[in-house]
């Protein structure tokens, strides 16, 4: 049953050094505040999982929290490279980063297999693609009925999944809408779950077929208004595309990056203070 708590307490109690952690979100609803709290608490040796690692994973990698990343597209969407990710892969800074790389279709299926408590997923994929040569977790199997050759990939079962959503009620039931990505699958595939929300309300009023995740599959719910910044929460905020463009400059240089992180993340207590420190309160 979900406990409504602070993000500080949730990250401290539920994420251990060495855990595999999926902070999911497909451009929309990315749990930035939770990523910052992981950095503030100096978690180490994490395996981070996400289809589309973006700026928050760049920050986790650059701050030395990460041993391994499992992913399918690692870039700054619409802008270009993730320089901290590249520096770790190309030059081993601040420490070498092991990567396990897939395609989107693969990871979407693998999360679904995790949620369905299956050992693996099967899909029509990877013919003519070089990824299976380098990622030995991608296998080929034969359909027992038709003989067709299909790809097989292990299910994703994160130790902890973290997502951001629009609303929760006081029992910790969570409502999200808009681009919902792979979050429901990632939640149901995980051993432990943290959800940050824009607001806690007395009563959720979902439209038919909106995504509701019951509180009894969630461990902690934390109210963090604007907690997806510079990503967004539909109905609450818009994507701050200008920040993603600014990140290109901040992350390019090790020293600029380190100073920025120290000043705005390590030296602030929480996400509200972080946003104050970079002067974005008005748009969040």
């Amino acid at each position: 049953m979900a406990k409504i708590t602070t993000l500080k307490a949730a990250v401290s109690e539920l994420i251990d050094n060495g855990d595999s952690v999926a902070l999911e979100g497909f451009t929309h609803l990315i749990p930035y505040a939770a990523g910052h709290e992981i950095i503030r608490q100096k978690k180490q040796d994490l395996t981070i999982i996400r289809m589309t690692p973006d700026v928050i994973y760049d920050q986790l990698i650059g701050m030395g929290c990460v041993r391994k990343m499992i992913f399918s597209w690692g870039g700054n969407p619409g802008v270009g490279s993730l320089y901290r990710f590249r520096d770790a892969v190309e030059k081993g800074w601040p420490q070498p980063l092991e990567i396990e790389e897939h395609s989107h279709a693969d990871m979407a299926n693998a999360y679904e297999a995790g949620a369905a408590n299956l050992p693996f997923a099967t899909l029509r994929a990877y013919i003519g693609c070089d990824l299976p040569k380098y990622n030995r977790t991608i296998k080929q199997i034969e359909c027992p009925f038709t003989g067709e050759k299909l790809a097989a990939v292990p299910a994703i079962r994160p130790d902890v999944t973290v997502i951001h959503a629009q609303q929760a009620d006081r029992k910790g039931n969570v409502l999200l809408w808009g681009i919902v990505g792979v979050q429901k699958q990632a939640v149901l595939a995980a051993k432990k779950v943290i959800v940050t929300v824009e607001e806690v309300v007395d009563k959720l009023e979902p439209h038919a077929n909106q995504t509701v995740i019951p509180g009894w599959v969630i461990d902690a719910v934390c109210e963090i208004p604007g907690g997806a910044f510079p990503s967004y929460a539909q109905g609450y905020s818009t994507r701050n595309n200008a920040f993603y463009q600014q990140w290109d400059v901040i992350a390019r240089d090790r020293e600029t990056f380190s100073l920025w992180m120290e000043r705005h993340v390590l030296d602030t207590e929480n996400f509200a203070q972080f946003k104050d420190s970079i002067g974005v309160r008005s748009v969040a």
Partner: protein
Amino acid sequence: MNAQYSSSEMMTIAASRLLQNGQVCFVGIGQPSAAANLARLTSTPDIVLIYESGTIGTKPDVLPLSIGDGELSETADLVVSVPEMFRYWLQGGHVDIGFLGAAQIDRFANINTTVIGDYNNPKVRLPGAGGAPEISTNCKEILIILKQSSRAFVEQLSFITSPGFMEGGDSREEAGLTNKGPVAVITDLGVLEPDPVTKELVMTHLHDGVTVDQARESTGWDLKFADHLQTTELPTDEELKVLRDLNERTAKAHAGAE
């Protein structure tokens, strides 16, 4: 006719003309998205645009910076989860055209968006596969758009992220792929199409003012030209106006979120 336009505008316009009304098009972010939306706003108003974030039938007023901008979900006919997108809609066989960009391409239209140099010790680490490998093998046909240069059009790819015609000839079918594969590569210099037998990309169109030598110098392999090499029709006033209005709205929207 309007003589004042950039090579980048010509590329987007030439690409937009290859889409047909009523098609269902799986759109990559960036150049493919610009061309597909230009088509939707000009010649193919009924085209169905799909972005891998789960937005189907989307009609953005400004070009999205990311694959999941709010503009895409707010203007979509439906928004589905990412597993549903890849399993039911793409693998399910509902998409006519996959429209991809690339960092590098070879003569058989194989594309690389993963790494330059050795995979385990890369010179340049690129973002990776995203949806492209399965877009390229599960859509009925593929269009590819990228600027033509000897750094992008290479003799040998470091890594094949998404297959085109693999080794050429029948190798794609022999590997078990049943879709048609790439039908055209649109660049800032012209259009390349696969030879029906060898599947090697052949330059079939040059944009107005582009020379054969220029195209050859911008290609890392010994580029072949069609016997009846054609000149791309100039942009119409309407195409240019719609594209420029779209770009202007887009620039304003993305700069607005300070």
